[in-house]
Each structure stands twice: as structure tokens, then as C-alpha cells.
């Protein structure tokens, strides 16, 4: 099962792993060179460090970090002598470990943060955690596994659930749908609803009558019939205004009235035409 990462080709000296028996059998190391060629087998420098630590055959909590650093550096040096190509992260780790070693050996700088001891302890903690997870994985893989050690029923009949639709609709849905259908498909007849209007004829009659009794300019609005606002449809009043305005234009055209407006949207005024003059 290649997962796309560097394929684990088995660690060298795998019997020192003890719990790593789930790995493919390690190719037997025949000499230094073979051993170092296995560098691909490690999952990075931390993995290599863990392997080296395991070879010390002591509890990871009691591991000597200095020994471990020496082993790692020796390993990397040897690989370099053999002119093996080392991935950059191994070299970075080597440089960092060399630095750590120098800090651990040199006289302490109390100001230094983090202290070399802290750095060493953190490295140890990381190795412990990786080691713990590696063992946990091995123990997991060694369990009685479904499909390998234990089996589910070979030929289950299967249980099936047939879904049955329960259709729902309300009476109002049905009635409304019927109304909708009838309305949609009834022959379309356009009926303009009867509504109160003040006709042009009525406006003409009223405006010319009132114009006769007016003595000077009068606002057009004063020519409108007076409606009771509470009981009258406001549209009737608007209709009267419109009709009266058209009536005024008509009277002006006939020469019977004069129109005046002082400004845009200003009140429209009218008066009876003076004899001989034009609007």
C-alpha cells in the first residue's frame, strides 16, 4: 500500500524495534554501506533519531541526549563520506544537534533562552511521543481485525426498508388549485371596473359656468366641486382636477378663457377672456 510518501522499505536492524513486526521484513544489512543506503527507510530525521535512541536500549525518558547527538552526527558524517545524498532536513537536524551539543558542553550562559537543557528536554519529549504513537500503531495493527481474524456474516440476507410515500395535501390546496386553473384558463375579458369619475362634459359645464361669475384671475382649484373628504373616493377628486384642467384648456382654445401660470408647478389661474384679447 504505497501512500505516495517515500515507501517504507523497512528499517535496518529491525529486530531492535521489537514492536515493529508489522513492517515488511527488513533487508538484512550486510555492511556499513548497505546500512547507510537504508536512509530512505526513515521517515525523516526524527525517525532516525528515534531509531538510534532505541538502540541505546534504555527507556526514552532516560536517554542520553548527548550520546544520541553523537550517534546522529556520526551517522550523517559517515553517510557524507560515502557520498550519499542526504535530504536537506537531515542536514538541518545535524546542524541543529551540533549546535545543541556545543551549548550543552560549553559554560552556561544564564541569559540564554531557551536554555540548552530545555532544548534537549523538548527533543526528548518529542521522541517519546513519536515512540508512543509508533508502539500504539503496532498494537493496533496486532489486534484481532475484522476481515482478517474475525468475520462478519458471510452471506447476510440484508434488511431492506421500502420507503412508501404518504402523500399529503389539504382541502384548501385542492380548492385553491381549482380556482387557479379556472382563472388561468377562463377566456380573458378585460373589464374596466366602474369607478367614480368627474367627466369632461361635467367639468366643461361647471368651469364655463363659474368663469362667467368670476371677476378676476382665479385658481383652477377653486373651480372644482367640493367633496366631503371623509366619504368621497380621493380618486374622484383627482378625476375632477384632471377634467377641469382639460376643460380649462379647451375653453382657452375656444377663446373663452385665459390661462396663466407664474412658475413651473405653480398654481394654474384662469379668468374669462376679455373681449378682443387672446390668451
Amino acid at each position, binding site marked *: 500500500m504505497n501512500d505516495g510518501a517515500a515507501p517504507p522499505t523497512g528499517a535496518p536492524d529491525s529486530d531492535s524495534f521489537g514492536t515493529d513486526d508489522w513492517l515488511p521484513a527488513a533487508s538484512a544489512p550486510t555492511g556499513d554501506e548497505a546500512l547507510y543506503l537504508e536512509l530512505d527507510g526513515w521517515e525523516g530525521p526524527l525517525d532516525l533519531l528515534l531509531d538510534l535512541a532505541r538502540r541505546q536500549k534504555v527507556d526514552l525518558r532516560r536517554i542520553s541526549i548527548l550520546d544520541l547527538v553523537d550517534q546522529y552526527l556520526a551517522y550523517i558524517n559517515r553517510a557524507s563520506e560515502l557520498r550519499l545524498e542526504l535530504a536537506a532536513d537531515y542536514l538541518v537536524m545535524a546542524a541543529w544537534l551540533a549546535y545543541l551539543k556545543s551549548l550543552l558542553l560549553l559554560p552556561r550562559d544564564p541569559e540564554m533562552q531557551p536554555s540548552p537543557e530545555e532544548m534537549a528536554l523538548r527533543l526528548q519529549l518529542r521522541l517519546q511521543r513519536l515512540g508512543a504513537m509508533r508502539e500504539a500503531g503496532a498494537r493496533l495493527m496486532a489486534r484481532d481485525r475484522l476481515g482478517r481474524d474475525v*468475520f*462478519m*456474516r*458471510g*452471506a447476510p*440476507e*440484508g*434488511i*431492506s*426498508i*421500502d*420507503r*412508501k*410515500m*404518504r*402523500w*399529503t*395535501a*389539504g*382541502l384548501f*390546496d*385542492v*380548492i*385553491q*388549485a*381549482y*380556482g*387557479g*386553473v*379556472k*382563472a*388561468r*384558463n*377562463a377566456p*380573458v*375579458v*378585460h*373589464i374596466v*371596473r366602474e369607478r367614480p369619475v368627474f367627466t369632461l362634459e361635467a367639468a366643461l359645464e361647471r368651469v364655463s359656468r363659474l368663469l362667467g361669475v368670476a371677476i378676476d384671475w382665479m385658481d383652477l382649484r377653486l373651480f372644482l366641486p367640493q367633496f366631503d373628504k371623509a366619504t368621497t373616493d380621493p380618486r374622484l377628486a383627482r378625476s375632477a382636477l384632471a377634467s377641469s384642467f382639460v376643460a380649462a384648456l379647451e375653453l382657452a382654445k375656444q377663446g373663452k378663457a385665459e390661462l396663466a401660470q407664474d412658475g413651473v408647478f405653480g398654481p394654474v389661474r384662469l379668468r374669462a377672456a376679455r373681449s378682443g384679447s387672446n390668451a
Partner: protein
Amino acid sequence: MNEPDDDLVRAVEATLFASETPLTPEELSRHLGGAPVKPALASLAAHYAGRGVHLVERGGRWHFQTAPDLAHLLRREREEPRRLSRAAVEALAIIAYHEPVSRAEIEAIRGVQTAKGTLDVLMEAGWVRIAGRREVPGRPTIYATTPAFLAHFGLTTRRDLPGIDELRAAGLLDPVDAAYAALTGSEAGSAASESGAEE
């Protein structure tokens, strides 16, 4: 009869359970290193006799199967409420108001084609039935509502359905007025405009 070895019974039990096919006693025996399995089979069959699973022999091969009286557990129906589609509600309404009615007549009234599946859904719901054929050329199937339709919608008879006049009074039947009301913003037709707005 000698009681078969308990380990062998367990082995036979596990092997038959895990097997993908029924096994003959010979196959079982071969699988289990030549042990005589027949007493174990008999013992197992007796053990499972009253349980929910039986060990049975069919044509010389043994396998586990669900107890016959529990076979109904293997298939279950589950009801799922589902709203009728608009097309189905309309078809149902037309059938209710005009029954018996053919599909062509439903389409004429709806003004659109009605899929066969729409009527199937109504029949599956138990609200519409085939009421015979119209004696006209082509002898089309005609549809009518069922007593279950009346029961579901709380109607005693079809005459309980509101008439055209009532629909109009309820504002359900006047697209022109509805459109006018919608345009002028008057309150009269807000209910009607809803149906009027539908196409």
C-alpha cells in the same frame, strides 16, 4: 448420541456463519481438519431451533437463515410524508370537480399537458381511481375520486366542495380583478392576486 466436542461445535458455528455459501458436511469437515462435523451440525441445529436464526440443511448444504416466522423483518416499509406537486393537486381538483373525467379533459381544463405519473401518484395516494372508459372514439380511461379522497379531505360528499360562485366570492377565481387589485394596491384582491399571479 455422544455430545460433540464443544470447540468443534463453535468452529462449525463460526465457519458456517462466515461462509459466503452454504457448505456440505464434507466441505466443513475438510475445512476443519477432517473432524466429523455431523454431530456438531445436529447439536447446533437443535440449539438454534427456537431462536431468531435457524441452522438449516438444503440439498445437503448447511447454512444459517432467519427464522421463517421473522422473515417479515427483512423487509420493512417506512412511510414518508410528501407534499403533492402542483400539477397533481390541480389534476386532483379537476377530477374532483368534473368527475368522471379523461386525461385529455383534464389537460383541456388545465391548459397544459399532464404527465401519466401525475395521475399515478394520485392513484397511489388512494384518492383517484379508474372509473371505466368513455364511450367515445379512442375509449379513453376516465378517472374519479375515491371514498378515501372524501375521508382524507373531510368531505361527506363531493357536493361539499365549494361551488364556482363561492370560489369567486373567496377571490379564488378572478384573474382580471386580481390583477387590477394588485396594480391599484387596494386590499380587495390580495387573496385573489395570489392565485392570479400563478401561471
